[in-house]
């Protein structure tokens, strides 16, 4: 009876889908039952055979072509649904608000903040300046852009609308939400790679926070600076085993990154999960035809260290 139960659950065990107690029970049984141990071996072997059918990564050309084709269609497509819902189903909206205290509270806070923001704008004249005769000209460095220039007909009166910026400073600990938000913003959008590097470096100190890990994955995928990508790798290293999305990002970097240093580092980080079918597939591809001799050799070495399945 016990062996029958094991045979029914061995697939889930191999896929790491058994609950802890069942897993423990199964392992205890395996320790003393040679038949079931043989069954486990056979299941693992079969699992590996099936992984011989590789999951092909879509080529960059295919991804780009698909995106372009979609963009063309989206340009001429209207979104549906929202207007219909607003007009025809306001009761559903009200129900949603009534049954979602958090959403209701958020709406109140947003409304309150908007009120304060509006009052602030009225008192300060807002971020958009309007230069008229008699006012002091702004410092050139504080102008971020000119919105419009117009002359009143029949007069020499000129109206210029411009946006201003002023440098501000924020201080706080890494746990401070405002600081985290600024770091996340800087890691993604700053044109200065030094600032991005510093931000990513600081973010790696808290890579278990959801948006932080997301930002590190983003930096690894899209940052133009290899130093920033290496920093992001540092922060992601601990999650290669537990987080498939991190693993996917690393596999992408291993295959496509333009920098050999980043690829080499990625290869080493992926070693502990080399048995994963997608990692194996990538390693096989690299071992066969990678342009970089070192990576090719390393991939071969890692594959050679793995057990044979046939």
């Amino acid at each position, binding site marked *: 009876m016990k062996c029958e139960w094991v045979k*029914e659950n061995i*697939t*889930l065990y191999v*896929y790491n*889908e058994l609950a802890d107690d069942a897993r423990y029970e199964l392992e205890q049984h395996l320790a003393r039952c040679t038949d079931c141990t043989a069954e486990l071996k*056979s299941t693992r*072997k*079969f*699992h590996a*055979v*099936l*992984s*011989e*059918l*590789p*999951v*092909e*990564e*879509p080529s960059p050309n*295919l*991804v780009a*072509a*698909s*995106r372009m*084709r*979609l*963009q063309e*269609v*989206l340009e001429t*497509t*209207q*979104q*549906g*649904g*929202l*207007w219909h*819902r607003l007009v025809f189903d306001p009761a559903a909206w009200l129900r*949603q608000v009534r049954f979602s205290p958090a959403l209701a509270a958020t709406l109140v806070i947003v409304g309150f903040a908007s009120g304060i923001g509006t009052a602030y704008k009225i008192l300060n004249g807002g971020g958009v300046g309007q230069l008229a005769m008699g006012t002091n000209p702004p410092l050139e460095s504080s102008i971020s852009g000119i919105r419009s220039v117009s002359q009143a007909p029949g007069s020499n009166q000129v109206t210029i609308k411009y946006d201003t910026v002023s440098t501000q400073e924020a201080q706080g600990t890494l746990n401070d939400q405002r600081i985290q938000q600024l770091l996340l913003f800087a890691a993604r959008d700053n044109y200065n790679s030094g600032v991005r590097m510093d931000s990513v470096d600081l973010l790696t100190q808290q890579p278990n926070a*959801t*948006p932080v*890990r*997301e930002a590190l*994955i983003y930096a690894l995928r899209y940052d133009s600076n290899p130093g920033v990508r290496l920093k992001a790798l540092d922060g992601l290293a601990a999650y290669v085993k537990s*987080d*498939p*999305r991190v693993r*996917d990002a690393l596999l*992408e970097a291993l295959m496509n990154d333009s920098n050999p240093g980043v690829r080499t580092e990625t290869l080493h980080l992926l070693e502990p999960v080399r048995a*994963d*079918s*997608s990692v194996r597939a990538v390693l096989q*591809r690299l071992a*066969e*035809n990678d342009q970089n001799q070192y990576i090719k050799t390393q991939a071969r070495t890692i594959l050679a260290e793995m057990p044979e399945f046939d």
Partner: protein
Amino acid sequence: MAGQSLGRIDDTLLVREAQRGNRAAFEELVRHYDQAVLRLAIHLTGSEHEAQDVYQEAFLKAYKSVATFRFECSFYTWIYRIVTNLCLDHLRKKQVRKEDAPVATDSTGEQYDVLEQVPDARAGANPERDLMRRELGTRISAALEKLTPRERMVFELKHYHGLKLRTVGEVLNTTEETAKNTLFRATQKLRGALADMR
């Protein structure tokens, strides 16, 4: 759950923007998931061309109905649900047509093996090993084609795409328990079909 919780906060902001009609936000969401969508569709349909059609239809559907998305599940689950439904339709049609998996018909009406058309870009490839790999791939593909569309989908999502069975259940609008049973059935069938390869 693969990637589900990770991008949730980021996605939520983008989804809200997309719901306001911000196309750039929607396109950013597309970029978050489109490689995974293509990967799944290519593996399931066996054709880049058909995968592109699935991609196009899935994201277009998502764009048209993003305003009705109510955050009852993650955007990740939602988009996967759309894609898997399209792929299931594709698999069902394919089963009805009873086509042999790797055979297609060219413009002159002649049949050819699709797998033979896949270019081998590997430098210095070993022909004997290639042949074995190809044969192995063909046999596995044929065995996968014999599964029911639902068994195939559960197996694909679990084995080849590494999703947790809980997520597979959510994506396919069923329970984790049903997904487990389906995976078990699929595995048994595959072992039967590929018994001589073990």
